[in-house]
Each structure stands twice: as C-alpha cells, then as structure tokens.
C-alpha cells in the first residue's frame, strides 16, 4: 500500500533522513526501530505531509502523495498518531472521537444552514460510530469525561480510537506504548491486532524490542538517517549492523 522511494530530508546542514526507500506491501504490521535521532519520526512526518520532502517520492497505493497537505493525505486514509499524546483536553472523550470523523457536512457553514437534515444525519452516524469505537478501545465509561482528565494510557487508547473514526487504510503509530503501564500495553496490543483483522495496515515506531518481536510481522531498522536492516524481527536482534547501531562497535578484547 505505502511505498517510499529514496526520500531525503535535511535541516540546514543536518541530513535527518537520507535516501530511504521502503514498501509496506501486504504485510499487516511493520515495525520501525532505531536509536534516538535516527530519523524515524522525521520519516513519519514526511509521509504524512507535516514535513516537506526534499528529494524522493511517496505513494499510497498508486497515487503519489509527496508533499501533499497533511489534511489531504489524512482524507485519503493514511492516518497517524504523534509521539507525545495529543488528545484535545477540553473536549470530552466522545467529542474527541466525533471530531475526528472526516468530511463532516456540518463543517461547512453553507450546508449547516441550508441542509440541516444532512448535517443531522452525519452527526447521528458519527455519534453511533464513536460509541462503537469507544467499545473497541474500552473507554465507554469515560465517554462524557474531559479527555484531559484521562490517564496517560487511556489518552493513548483514545488516540488510537480517534484514528479508527477516519476509516483508515494505513496507520502510522509513533511509539504507541511509550510511558504506559504494562496492563494497558496488553489492551493496546490487542486493539492494534484487532485493527489488522479489519484490513488496516499498521506501520509503527517502537523502542520496546520484546513487543516488536511479538507484534510485528516485519521490522525495519534505521540508523543515522538510513535504513540498515529489513527482515523478520527475530533476525533483526541478531544482525551485526543493528547491534552496533544500538550498542556501539564491539571492541576486540585481544587488542586492548
């Protein structure tokens, strides 16, 4: 579905991502790992249009989406979460979900006043869907609570739920389990697995290697802006280049 050809991004003299190409193909869950500063989030920002692409091209199925505006990419079914939780604190949990529904006719001022029936139908449909999503992410009890009052882990679940509202085809998750407690990680893993059952492709950044090995069907490793490994998770942890990227070069004991 998602294909990236040779993309590059520089900030002044620093090249954050350098000539990365990859294809998600038909693989349900792909993991992206790499040390801090290796360009993973930058890559996500470029795919979703938040950063411009200096060189290279990005395709969603056969449509080129290079440097399209983020909201247009999102409307094509490529959704993302952010590295830090970004729920809307002063809207309720339910409103957070409903607001995420794409192309609501009630967001047009003209239709709001001239086609109130259509607007009401949209709103009803979106509310029903939001209630379903609430069940999926197991937050029914907190529907009317302000999202800012949810725990960190619940906010992460809400972020996932928000994505489901948009009928995504591919979702990009930036460190979905960072900073949440182990029992909620289990919930989250189940929700993510559930998504792939519904035909949604997942591409996620994750630092927790045991989780990557458990969850991902394939793993990509980045270091210093380039892709250094592509393959099965259990091979990644044995790969010499990957180990060096994470732990540094092994010193030869006999020479020291």
């Amino acid at each position, binding site marked *: 579905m998602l294909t990236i050809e040779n993309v590059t991004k520089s900030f002044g003299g620093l090249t954050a991502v350098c000539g990365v190409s990859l294809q998600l193909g038909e693989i349900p869950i792909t993991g992206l790992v790499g040390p801090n500063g290796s360009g993973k989030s930058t890559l996500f920002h470029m795919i979703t249009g938040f950063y411009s692409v200096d060189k290279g091209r990005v395709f969603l199925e056969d449509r080129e989406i290079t440097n399209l*505006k983020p909201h247009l990419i999102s409307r094509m079914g490529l959704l993302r979460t952010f590295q830090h939780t970004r729920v809307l604190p002063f809207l309720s949990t339910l409103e957070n979900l409903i607001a995420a529904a794409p192309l609501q006719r009630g*967001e047009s001022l003209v239709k*709001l006043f001239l086609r109130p029936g259509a607007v009401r139908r*949209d709103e009803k449909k979106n509310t029903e869907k939001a209630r379903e999503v609430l069940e999926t992410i197991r937050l029914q009890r907190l529907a009317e609570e302000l999202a800012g009052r949810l725990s960190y882990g619940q906010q992460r679940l809400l972020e996932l739920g*928000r994505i489901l509202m948009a009928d995504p085809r591919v979702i990009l998750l930036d460190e979905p389990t960072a900073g949440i407690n182990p029992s909620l990680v289990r919930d989250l893993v189940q929700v993510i697995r559930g998504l792939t059952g519904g035909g949604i492709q997942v591409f996620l950044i994750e630092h927790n290697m045991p989780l990557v090995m458990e969850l991902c069907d394939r793993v990509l490793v980045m270091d210093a802006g380039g892709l250094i490994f592509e393959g099965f998770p259990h091979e990644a942890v044995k790969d010499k280049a990957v180990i060096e990227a994470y732990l540094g070069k092994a010193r030869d004991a006999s020479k020291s």
Partner: protein
Amino acid sequence: MDYFYHILVIALIYVIFASSLNLELGYAGLYNFGHVAFFAIGAYTSALLSLAGFSPAASMAIALLCSAASGALLAMPALRLSGDYFGIATLAFGELARLFALNERWLTKGPMGLPGIPRPLGIEAGISGIPVYFIFTVTITVAVLLILRKTTMSPFGRALKVVREDEFVARAFGKNVFSLKVRAVAMGSLFAGLAGALYAHFVTYISPYDFSLNETILVLLCVVLGGKGTLSGPVLGAFVIIFFQELLRFLPIPTDWGRFVSPIQGMIYGAVLVILMLKRPEGIIPEHRTLQC
C-alpha cells in the same frame, strides 16, 4: 427612561460585537487585536451608503457583506502568520482602518465625522426614536445569538475548537485549518460589521475617534471577563462592562479632573484584563468545570 434605553441599546450592540470576537477568540483561538476595524467598516459603509441615498436597511445589509469580505481578505495573508504574529498583524490593521477614516477626507470627512445618519425602518431620529430602536436592536441581537448558537454547537464549532486545542491534530484528521480560520474570521467580521452599522444608525454621528484601540480592548475585556468559548459569557461581559462604564458618570468627580477619567479608565481596564488572564482565564462563566489533573 430614554437614557436607560440608550444604555441598553449600546450594551446590546456590545453583546453582538463581543460575541463576534468570541467566535474568533473563544472558539478558533485567534487573538484578533484589530477587531474594531470591522466594527468601523460596518459603521462607515452603512453610514456612507445611507447618506448617499440608499435605504438604511439595505445599507446595513451591504455593510455586513463588506465587513465579512474585508475580514476574509485580512485573514488570508494574516493567518499565514502564527500565534502572536497574527495578533500583531491584526493590531496594525485596526490602526490602519482608523487612520484611513481619519485621513481620507474625500470619503469619510476625516476628523469631522459623518453627522445625520438616518435610522432604518423609518425609526425617528433623536430621543423619541430610542425605544423603537431598542426593540429593533433586541430583535437583531436575539437573531445573532441564535445563529451563533447554531454555529458554535455544530460540527463547524467543534472543528474550530479542535483547531484551537491542537492544530497538528486538526490537520492529521483532515481538517483544513486555514479555511476554518478564514471562515471564523469572516463570520466574526460580519457580526462586528453588523454591530458597527447598528451603532452608526443609532448614534447618527460617527467619527474616527469612535474606533480607536480602546474599543478593541473594551470588547476583548467583555469576552475575557464574561467567559470566552461560551455563548452567554460575552453577553454577560458586555452588560457588566457597559453598565460599569455608565456608573462612572455618577461618581462625584470634580469637573477639572475630568480629563484624567478616560486615561485612568483605560489603565483600570488594562489591569483588569491582565489580572483576569492570570487569575481567572476562564472568566465569570467557564466553558468547562475546571480541569484538575
């Protein structure tokens, strides 16, 4: 009694003016420091057209459209700037509008102002027309508040709140942030223009001195004091501020101190605004029960 109606009409005009700013400030999170410009555009357009012989009602309608259009025209370049810089650009626009009215004498008669603006719907000029004008203003205010209620409680209003809370999230979920903001400013300007037109036809004389930065601060205070992001907040804020201002007239101030009153009033408003922002940013009527994390 006519004096009381007079104050009520002014308060209602400020209700519309403050509510229009609230759409931008409270819902879309846009700090527009030049909102008085659209009040002025509405007032001058309607006044000039009706003095040129158009019916006052038609002049008011055209004035609304002019205000909305100029709002959109300002918003498009100014919204390329973010946060504080948008505020500065609008501040400059507010001054620009005032200086235009002051200096383009061929059109606005400059500091002499425009006297003899007729009232709409055959309402009498002078004091005798005030009660009828009051009813006229009440009707319009109610209509404006109903429209704003529908707008802010709709998916459009919710999308504005999403933009206010987190632009990145809004973009990530397919919202055209720029377009939403332009529409918020255009609609805000439309109602500011309506307030301006109502003002011009009520007092029947306008001059550039009616549209200074003070007015922007006053209306900002109405919104922040009442409670931004709520429908009733700016209504309450406008009544509190206008009645407070009128009460000042009854203070036993020696006449030769009169020249100090206006600057001191400005200082008090400024101080109240700063204190509110620090101590009670949600205003008298909060949008939510307070968040305690």
